[in-house]
């Protein structure tokens, strides 16, 4: 099984419920200050200073993830500002006009596609290589998916958003090939826009086909979709060429869980077991109850657990507490399953 490569040699239980995070993590406060200085005109901070600061932040957050006990780490996306902007700045064909409203006084610098998009500089390879060198544990790379890059931009250049999405899929594919060459084996494609326009699930599927077509056989591909009505995209998404579906369900108190039980869940499930919009650390007992919800859908060897979504809006100590309790909950539950104290289904050996 592809998942076995992420199991640590020191893993003590026979059962393995993989633990990870979706990606973003609260940045250290000093990094915001450095960004202000780097972006301000006439200040003494140049690109080298920015790189040094983000390297330090990546060291800090990767170590924090390791200390929390996660099986698969992320560097907290400390170098990225926003999930579309970061990539649009690195792709030829985009321009920026200024902030637009998302809700209330929350804005983002929604870019415009004004020419055919083309691959320019590396997006994430250096970020991955740096983080991978910091730890023995596997490092996951979250990357914004082509459909979200298209849908959350203004399209001035293409006849249809679909054509733009397919061109972007080719660029995402190019980046993923480089990441795989650099050693990345766990790639998570983030497609939150699918939740806003569920009727476009076939376009997302075609984008993913372009990415998965010639991918290295050991690469474990995840898809993250959050904050939407899953009944409008499930079971259709089961046809996607991905290994894992990362879903946000704790926020809605698992009201949508039944959606995934009506039709057999044939993929691996990455289940959100802590709510990222509640600034309180859920107890180990509560998280164990949430993990059991996931075991109603898939057996333990096909279950990954993570927070619902990126943790970046939480106070850092709360984010850490959620990760640490999540890992403890998984390890306790694994031991209970090993001892036969909890009855769970197992996957036949051939499945994967």
């Amino acid at each position, binding site marked *: 099984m592809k998942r076995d490569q992420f199991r640590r040699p020191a893993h003590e239980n026979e059962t393995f419920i993989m633990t990870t995070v979706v990606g973003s993590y609260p940045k250290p406060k000093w990094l915001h200050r450095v960004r202000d200085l780097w972006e301000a005109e006439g200040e003494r901070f140049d690109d080298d200073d920015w790189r040094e600061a983000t390297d330090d932040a990546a060291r800090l957050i990767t170590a924090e993830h390791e200390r929390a006990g996660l099986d698969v780490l992320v560097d907290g996306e400390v170098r990225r500002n926003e999930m579309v902007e970061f990539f649009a700045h690195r792709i030829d064909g985009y321009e920026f*006009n*200024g902030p*637009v409203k998302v809700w*209330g*006084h929350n804005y983002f610098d929604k870019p415009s596609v004004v020419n055919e998009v083309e691959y320019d500089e590396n997006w994430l390879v250096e970020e991955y290589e740096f983080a991978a060198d910091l730890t023995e544990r596997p490092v996951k790379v979250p990357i914004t998916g082509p459909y979200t890059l298209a849908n959350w931009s203004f399209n*001035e250049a293409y006849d249809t958003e679909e054509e733009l999405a397919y061109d972007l899929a080719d660029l995402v594919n190019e980046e993923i090939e480089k990441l795989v060459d650099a050693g990345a084996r766990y790639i998570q494609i983030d497609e939150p826009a699918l939740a*806003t326009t569920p009727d476009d699930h076939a376009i997302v599927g075609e984008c993913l086909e372009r990415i998965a077509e010639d991918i290295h056989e050991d690469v474990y591909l995840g898809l993250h979709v959050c904050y939407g009505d899953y009944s409008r995209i499930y079971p259709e998404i089961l046809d996607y060429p991905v290994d894992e579906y990362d879903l946000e369900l704790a926020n809605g108190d698992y009201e949508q869980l039944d959606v995934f039980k009506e039709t057999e869940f044939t993929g691996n499930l990455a289940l959100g077991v802590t709510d990222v919009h509640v600034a309180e650390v859920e107890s180990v007992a509560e998280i164990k109850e949430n993990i059991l919800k996931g075991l109603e859908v898939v057996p333990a060897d096909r279950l990954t657990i993570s927070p619902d979504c990126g943790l970046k809006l939480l106070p850092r100590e709360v984010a850490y507490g959620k990760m640490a309790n999540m890992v403890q909950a998984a390890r306790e539950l694994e031991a209970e399953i090993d001892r036969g104290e909890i009855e769970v289904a197992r996957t036949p050996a051939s499945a994967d």
Partner: protein
Amino acid sequence: MTVVTTTPGLYPLPDWAKETLSSLKGHQKHDLIGGDEGEEILDTYGEIREELIGDQREAGLDLVSEGQARWDDMLAHPLAVHENVDTRGIVRYYDNNNFYRDPVVTGELTESGDVARELESAAEFTDSLQAVLPGPYSLSDLATDEYYGDSAAFLDATADFLANEAAMFPDHDTLFLLEPSLVEHPPEDDENERASEAISRVASATDAEVVVHTYWGALSEKVHAHLLDAAIDAVGYDFVSEVDDNLYNIQEYGTTDSIALGLLDGQNTLVESPETITERIEWIGERLPAHEFDTTYVSTNTELFYLPENKYKAKLAALGEVAAREEVTA
């Protein structure tokens, strides 16, 4: 044909105001407008109002809207500030990457006067005022009812509420009722008649011309036919997102004596040239040879808040240029 240039309102905040208001109000859901804001915030909105109206006048639009910069919850605003409404979780605004606070109606929808107060202030800066409200069907669709008990009673109460609001408005030339829910979540069966009656009820509260503007596609044939039964002066059609079905509806069922055409994309930074807009007006006119409209309102298809500041101004300028040309040729 008289061409009148206008917009459906709901402007983006100027960039300076995005920052000023963020720091005055905050970023969380309880920080948003509740109708009880303090003097400093009210003054800031006063400045923004003057600026947005100035932008429209400078561009040369025929009708000027208040701008609705205060409408943090977009079309749900008139309920979100009501004393008998609780604003709860953040919910998605149609199929957009935008969110508003779910307004939960927990008591009687009594008169509020919130929108009327904004328009009173706006009237100081223009003699061509256009009022903007959500249509009753869309407003009830965006809200949650915990008081009236069934959807029919809630729709009626929403219509009465909006009619009372409109009755308090200062003099205005037009009232735009925005009804995207008629397209996005269309009424079913006898709900159609009720929605049409609800719209008539709001329309009857003003002496101004009433335009019911629809967007994000075309109305279904049945909804369109029922809407034409309402006592209104114009229906607005979104020719950016859907051309064929809108033309078909008008050809098959006719339309109101006046018409509103959504011809500029309120959700794309690509700026239509005045030539393109004029060509689109003519192109549609050629396909509706049997119709002689009293007034043709020309507008963006959607609200404008989706756009960055430089691009909404560029769209206004293009619309203004169309207005200037029409005056020359008229």
